[in-house]
């Protein structure tokens, strides 16, 4: 069961978790990750909003590909990946992922893997609008290093 979606309105992480758990079929372990838009830039300036430009088809396709790869690689019985696009205010949930598996190690790894890939490979173009200016963002070196952990 793979549920990959784009959201144009704030994501309610608790409602997502409830919906995800309602569909489980005997898995003993559920790991979820919630990413929340940060109130400050790396430099410390107040962020007014994040703008996530996206592609009408390829963005969702990239999320589906990551979710499907996580399910297969970690034998996760259920996977969810929900991502905002458009304008996101600080404090709003920007991404929710969940993985359910028989054992907790697989559930942790599937969620961790999805986040590392979403942070580098998902088809978004992210702009940070802060009080000190507007910046288009690329994956950080830390993001690339996390992503590299999963290379075969």
């Amino acid at each position, binding site marked *: 069961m793979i549920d990959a979606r784009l959201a144009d309105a704030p994501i309610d992480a608790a409602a997502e978790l409830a919906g995800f758990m309602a569909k489980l079929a005997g898995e003993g372990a559920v790991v979820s990750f919630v990413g929340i838009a940060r109130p400050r830039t790396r430099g410390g300036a107040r962020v007014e909003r994040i703008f996530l430009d996206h592609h009408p*088809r390829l963005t969702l396709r990239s999320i589906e590909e990551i979710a499907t790869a996580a399910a297969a690689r970690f034998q996760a019985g259920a996977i969810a990946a929900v991502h905002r696009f458009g304008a996101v205010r600080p404090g709003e949930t920007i991404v929710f992922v969940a993985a359910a598996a028989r054992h907790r190690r697989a559930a942790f790894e599937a969620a961790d893997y999805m986040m590392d890939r979403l942070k*580098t490979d998902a088809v978004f173009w992210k702009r940070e609008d802060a009080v000190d200016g507007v910046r288009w963002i690329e994956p950080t070196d830390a*993001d690339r290093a996390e992503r590299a952990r999963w290379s075969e």
Partner: protein
Amino acid sequence: MEIRFFGRLGERIGREIEIEPPPPGCTVGELRVLLAALYPDAAEELASMSTRACIDDTIVGEEAAVDPARAVEFFPPVSGG
């Protein structure tokens, strides 16, 4: 024909423009040169190989043929989510 831009390029040029169809046999690489002349402020990014070209939802190389009936899209490096 339709050309679309995303991310920083979309902000600079606009999401979608309509241009005169390029001459038959035009490649994606030649289209970049043509667009750079139209948008000198974005010339560097249009020429950069880190800006990928995409036709029919598939990334294509510089030698790909431009068909005026199929929009070409240009993607700066993705940021991830």
